[in-house]
């Protein structure tokens, strides 16, 4: 029987994801199909493979393909103090609540190359919370984690970062936190002194600590609904009562199974608060 090429492509893609999971335990099967397909099409071009099956073959026989493929599978777009309004709200409305805890834990889920983490670390330092805070930065891409741990960013992005930082309500300049060398900026090592970098998958792994603030921005958009629900379930379990969850600008809890368990804290900035009665 003949199958339409598009359909065949879907089958091949699923098989590829299965192979990836079976061989390397990276589970992308719950990711949103359309987006995965587009990203992997770019990968096909890059690896010079005519079809997903060929890519699968390559992946199974050559482990060195994996890190390069992961680059395509995980989208590593980020900027520091992205959506400054979000950070301003954190500063003004969330931090006073966090100050009532003797020790604070912050989880940056899907930290990618670390921009979000450094933004939060800088914000917490500026608000005087850094000393009693532990940050957990997790991602599934070991390469991204390494880059996050290095904290080196292209110099030409600093203008945008600095502008964002200023608009987030900062009282000093972002340049206080980095050293420019050649065409790169290296962030202050002490910013990650209180950070645990770890490989953690929202698909398969479970909760590891009791958290006061979770930032998981522009991660859920790549997931399909059941996986989104799983991730939000993890957040719900990890958060303390009245703990905070920050999502990306286009993400919402409204259709999630856990929607009733969260209250909207700052709806415009997509900051939610875990309800006390569930």
């Amino acid at each position, binding site marked *: 029987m003949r199958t339409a090429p598009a359909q065949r492509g879907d089958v091949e893609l699923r098989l590829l994801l299965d192979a990836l999971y079976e061989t390397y*335990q990276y589970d992308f099967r719950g990711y*949103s199909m*359309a*987006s995965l397909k*587009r*990203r992997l099409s*770019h990968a096909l071009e890059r690896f010079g493979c005519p079809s997903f099956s060929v890519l699968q073959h390559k992946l199974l026989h050559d482990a060195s393909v994996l890190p390069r493929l992961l680059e395509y599978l995980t*989208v*590593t*777009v980020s900027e520091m103090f992205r959506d400054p309004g979000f950070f301003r709200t954190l500063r003004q409305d969330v931090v*006073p*609540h966090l*100050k*009532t*805890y*003797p*020790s604070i*834990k912050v989880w940056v889920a899907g930290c990618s190359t670390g921009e979000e983490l450094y933004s939060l670390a800088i914000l917490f330092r500026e608000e005087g919370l850094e*000393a*009693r805070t*532990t940050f*957990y930065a997790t991602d599934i891409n070991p390469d991204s984690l390494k880059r996050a741990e290095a904290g080196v960013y292209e110099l030409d992005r600093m203008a945008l970062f600095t502008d964002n930082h200023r608009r987030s309500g900062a009282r000093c300049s972002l340049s206080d936190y980095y050293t420019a060398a*050649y*065409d790169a900026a290296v962030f202050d090592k002490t910013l990650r002194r*209180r*950070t*645990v970098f*770890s*490989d*953690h*998958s929202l698909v*398969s*792994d*479970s*909760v*590891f*600590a*009791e958290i006061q603030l979770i930032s998981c921005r*522009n991660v*859920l*958009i*790549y997931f399909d609904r059941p996986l989104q629900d799983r991730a939000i379930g993890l957040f719900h379990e990890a958060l303390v*009562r*009245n703990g905070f969850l920050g999502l*990306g600008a*286009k*993400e*919402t809890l*409204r*259709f999630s199974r856990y929607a009733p368990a969260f209250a909207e804290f700052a709806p415009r900035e997509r900051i939610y608060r875990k309800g*006390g*009665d569930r």
Partner: protein
Amino acid sequence: MTRFQRTPTPGSHAAIAASVIAVLLADLYTPLGMLAWVFYFLPVVFTYFVWQPALPLAVAGTVSVLTVLGYLFSPPGLDPWTSMLNRGFGVVMAWALGSIGHQFVRNKIAIRKQEWLQSGQTALSDRMAGDVTLPVLGERVLTFLAEYLEAQAGAIFLKEGASRVRRFATYGVPLDASVPECVEPGDGLLGAALKDGRIAKVEGVPEGYLTVGSSLGRGRPLHLLIAPFVVDGTVEAVVELGFFQPISEADQELLARVSESVAVAVRSANYRGRLHGLLEETQRQAEELQAQSEELRTANEELQEQSQALQLSQTRLEAQQAELEQTNAQLEEQAQALELQRDELARAKAALERHAADLRQASRYKSEFLANMSHELRTPLNASLILARVLADNAGGNLTEEQVKQARTIETAGNDLLALINDVLDLAKVEAGRMEAHPEPVGLAGFIGQLVRTFQVVAEEKGLRLSFHLADEAPPTIETDPKRLDQVLKNLLSNAIKFTEQGEVELAVRREPDGRIAFSVRDTGIGIAEDQQTTIFEPFCQADGAVNRKYGGTGLGLSISRELVRLLGGEIRLSSAVGRGSTFTVVVPPVYDRAAPIRRTPLLDQTGVPAASAPPPKLATRSADDREQLPGSRRVVLIVEDDEPFARILYDLAHERSFHALIASHGDEAVALATQYAPCAVLLDIGLPDHSGLSVLDQLKRDARTRHIPVHVISSHDYHDTALALGAVGFLLKPVRREQLIEAFRTLETGLAHQVRRVLVVEDDPVQLDTVSRLLASDRVEVVGVGTAAECLARLESASFDCMVLDLNLPDASGFTVLETISRDDRYPFPPVIVHTGRDLEPEEEQALRKYSTSIIVKGARSAERLLDEATLFLHKVESGLPPQQAAFQQVRSRSAALEGRHILIVEDDVRNIYAVSSVLEPQGAVIHIARNGREALDALRQASLPGSQPIDVVLMDLMMPEMDGLTAIREIRMRPEWQKLPIITLTAKAMRQDQEASLAAGANDYLAKPIDVDKLLSLIRVWMPR
């Protein structure tokens, strides 16, 4: 020597010399005039083929000298003058040929050099062509240059990005040689070249320079050439080449010529790289945008779906509304009809009540009248009886036979009248409730024998057989009032004998299946018609008016019997058929129950034959109530009442007062429901089928779980004092009025509303104390504030609190001490504690506090809100009971010897997990040590292995921790020989196989996935615990 001068073939110089010598010899031996010297031109021409520009001139010079020598030493021949002239021409020719040769070779070499340079340029351009990245470009350029220039070593540095110049490739350099990664402008020779853009040449390279290596050894090039590649005045790359041979002009020239093209290639490769990066970045951004827009679209679709669903449900709602309106209208009509009916009923009820009251009045009057009358009648009757007796005795002997007979008749009639009056009196007494039972143990065999003996004579006189039968299963003794029972049975026996002409009368005693004792009196007499079977128990009624005349009797016997049996807590049944005899059965409980209500049991069995058993108590029936729909409601009332209609009334009333209601129809069920549902109030009836309501009340008050529940007793018997003494909050005597019931509910409600919660606030600053008190206080929360630790302890000892808010800084002792004292001393109850502190806590301090308190609040702008929140939580127990995780931990309580006294190190930074794990292990007798990261774990282990301290038996290691993570810590531990065998179990939140393998690879003995399963944890620890 340059690469363009052909290396002379070894023989060529010799050949030239040989030919010169040959010509010289020929010249010397031949006489003058023999033009042998002409052959001198040959060697000169030969030199053209030896690529050395000086050689033709040199040979020409030599040849000139030799020609002169030949002239001088040749044997004479031709005229010397001519010869000299000839030779002169020859010399000139030789020089001419020599200079031509010189020019020719030089030109040739220049042409070759140009060719070399051009082919070099072309080849390099070819190498650099195409879409190459910087590393490839560097590699290609360097390899080419080294090979082309025949350099032995080389390194190339390319400019990457805006300013940095980085090494991209080396040639012939051993891997371990130290070649700088980057070059700064002005830093060394390379830096100088970078800065000036000029080629630098170094001759006689000193020690420690760029080295050349092969498998056989390594060496140091003698000459060094450093060339920058420049375009538009900026240096794009620098190459350093090392030579063993000296560096030629051409090498430098080639480098100068390719300088620009290489620079351009580097620049464009840089551009390309940046472009590529930008393209990928753009792609990624586009991807994110697309994902976002997809998310939006999905959200949009969901919204649309929802709005469609909403529309659907709206239409459905509209339809429902229409339907509701319709039903409403109908209901209204029905309500009106019902109202009418109700009014009518109310009127009828009022009339009935009036009648009932009238009747009660009349009945009382009647009873009183009868009682009085009997007395009044008996007094004169007594006199007439005595006198009639005197007359009948005829002591004077003055009466005729006839008169004596008449006197006897008067006496008999009087006695009958007296019996009648006694009966009437009894009946009146019973009906007026003035007769009491006096229970005592009765031996059944003796009792029955006595009874039968009394009637034996009468029966024999009538020719009837009178027998009795005592069943084996009947108990030897029962506890009842023997006088009343005797009265009843005598009545029945005498009736039986009276109404039986022939045949037999039998008295049988047996045990009913429900445990009660049945006395049956069976006869073979005339029997009673079915339609009269009910009426015969009514006072002054007999089966047939005619019977009365024939058999005599007052007709009160059965009525009295029935009332007496009721008094004994039993019943009387009848089964009979006309002409076939009758059976009267008296059923009484084996033990007289004072509290038992008087039953109104039906007199007839449905079948019409003697009843085999009484209906069993209604244990199984259950009234419909709200037990299925108690959504954690606090307003639940338990109704304990076996009378279903009355239970319904209470149920409706409860709903009216917006309580949920549970109904129990007997005592055991009531206790079970009260324990299970913990209602907020109980309405209790005393007369229950299985056991008395008083025992229910007692059980409720004895159980700690139900002790606090207010119980309101409603009973038809007056147990007011007993009930209140047992702890009931109120008592109502049936029949009750509706207003009384409502009042009872109101009492219960106010009781509920006044369950005031008490909070103890310990705070030394009076202003803060006041603020916190104001914040927490409400009509349901009473706040007690104290300023010192001593006061706090005193308060805790004297009263109970639902929650305690504790400041850590107190004038007389710290909050830590207070908490420790409370937890250690049994005198103090330990309410939930909220620590409210103004200072930042050290991690160790927080850890210590967490043992006693789950919520620690640091004072600040938003702390008031959180304090109120946490306090409310404790006071109202929003989250009922324990969280599931903790509840699970509580199940494991059994103390196993395996962990007793063992030392376990928990390495974990999450307080929640530390608390959970230690709460499992500590009850098992394990001694817990805590480290918050790998470094602390190592310290703790070191500490524990010191002589004099207890070594650690097992380590539980979390993987994700600050400072030093679990895997590193395990590796460090395993490096120490004395800790090689120390059992380590890792706790990981990760599900992947590799992570588990990674912990085993690092040296852990086992691993456990989070969330932690208590049973698994314990069994793992038991497995790995060293024996």
